[in-house]
């Protein structure tokens, strides 16, 4: 593995007084896709929120591009080149598509926004003046991904991007993610679908009860069905 773009070392965190993360470590090298896997409630989303700074890490450290960002204000992190697509999409339903897209960028003319969307998200381009809440779940997810890309991130973090999406759009969203990765943007992906995650990821980290319990290439995980069953409760797809 090359020098990590994002490095999380032994972080711990609590929500209220409940400890949720105990010891999570992971690394995302530049231009690679890392899958973060685990059963529901093991702390995957909380780990991402720690990386984004919306939950404070109470221990350990987080560094991005070599700089320690553990205590950096959350709103300063996107400016470093970290794009985030939260679980549940996180779009603003009462804002138009254009307003949603412009939230994370400054001083960019409308024409530039439309240009950026022209090739990759033609459906959004047709709906720039529409309220985001009136779009389908799949379109909202594309909007959330497009919005994160507007900031020209070096790392894109996606939290269950295909959750609750119509099956016919799931493959389209996965294709987007593969294209994004192919364009050189590093991706940290939380994905419930093990088969899809193993297909796209260069490296996987599996969490168990607030800890990172496995870290390695997908082939190593595939080679150990017992481990997969213990950590994920499913068989090898």
């Amino acid at each position, binding site marked *: 593995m090359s020098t990590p773009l994002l490095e999380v070392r032994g972080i711990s965190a609590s929500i209220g007084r409940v400890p949720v993360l105990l010891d999570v470590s992971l690394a995302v090298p530049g231009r690679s896709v890392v899958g973060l896997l685990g059963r529901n409630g093991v702390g995957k989303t909380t780990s991402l929120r720690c990386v984004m700074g919306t939950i404070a890490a109470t221990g350990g450290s987080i560094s991005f591009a070599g700089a320690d960002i553990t205590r950096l204000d959350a709103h300063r*992190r996107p400016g470093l080149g970290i794009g985030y697509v*939260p679980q549940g999409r*996180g779009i*603003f339903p009462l804002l138009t598509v254009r307003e949603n897209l412009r939230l994370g960028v400054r001083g960019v003319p409308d024409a530039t926004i439309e240009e950026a969307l022209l090739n990759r998200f033609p459906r959004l381009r047709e709906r720039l003046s529409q309220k985001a809440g009136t779009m389908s779940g799949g379109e909202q997810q594309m909007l959330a991904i497009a919005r994160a890309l507007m900031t020209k991130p070096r790392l894109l973090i996606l939290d269950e991007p295909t959750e609750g999406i119509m099956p016919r759009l799931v493959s389209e969203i996965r294709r987007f993610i593969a294209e994004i990765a192919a364009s050189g943007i590093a991706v940290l992906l939380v994905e419930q679908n093990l088969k899809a995650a193993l297909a796209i990821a260069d490296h996987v980290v599996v969490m168990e009860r607030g800890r990172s319990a496995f870290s390695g290439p997908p082939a190593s995980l595939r080679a150990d069905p017992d481990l997969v069953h213990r950590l994920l409760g499913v068989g090898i797809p």
Partner: protein
Amino acid sequence: MQDIVILALNGLAWGLIIALIALGLSVIFGLLDVINVAHGDFFMVGTVLAWVAVDVTGSFAIALVLVPLFGLLLGAVTERIAIRPVLSTIVLTVVSTHGLGLMLQEGVRATFGATPRRLLAPVGGTVTLPGGVLYDTYRLVAAGAAALALLAFFAFQQRTRFGTWMRAVRHDRETAMTLGIPVQRVQLMTFSIGAGLALLGGVIAAPITTVDFRAGIEILPTCFMAVIIGGLGNLPGTAAAAVLLAVTEGVVSAVLDPSAARIVSLCLMSAVLFLRPHGLFAGARA
């Protein structure tokens, strides 16, 4: 009939001023979840400072510019000192703003005095309306100024980057943060704008109300009723509800009496709480 028209117009003018103040209350609640019990006292400070500014400079225009600017400053200082330290425990913000309200009242009583005063309207005389109704010119000017301020606020919220940030933070502050929006700065400026609106309302209302350290206590319930009827955090709804309340009270006062008018308002609020708990204008959110 003419009396009813005049009272309805009074209701409209007063309603637009209330709308301005209630809008401040609603924008603060919508974004910070803070029930600002001192909001009526911000209005009172506006009326008092308008009186002082006119007394010192002789110019109402100066008061109209300087007092709302002071309101922005007062709001910013309040957010930093009385709100932000206790924002994680919402009930403490009620205690904190209640304490601030008492400090403002006693501060004004100690310096300005307890005697109610009147501020002469900067525009005197009457105008003849269609139907031959003679109506106080300043009230029309006040209604126009309040309506203009409301429109300016909505344009600011819809057309500016900061306005979009305010709408985004109101919906989901965590996601807003992950997009690089400086949420704490948005909160500070929102509280500041809310206070500025209350003081602006105070300046506009000063010539048609009594300048008194207790004025905030009287106006706060009407503002809360407007916010509840309009829908919590629903800004256009709040403005519309304030006008509806004031016009209704104005007309009912003419037909029955002021006490009955207040009872009608309370019944309206109760009916809304029972039948449309999200507000009379739910769905018209900006």
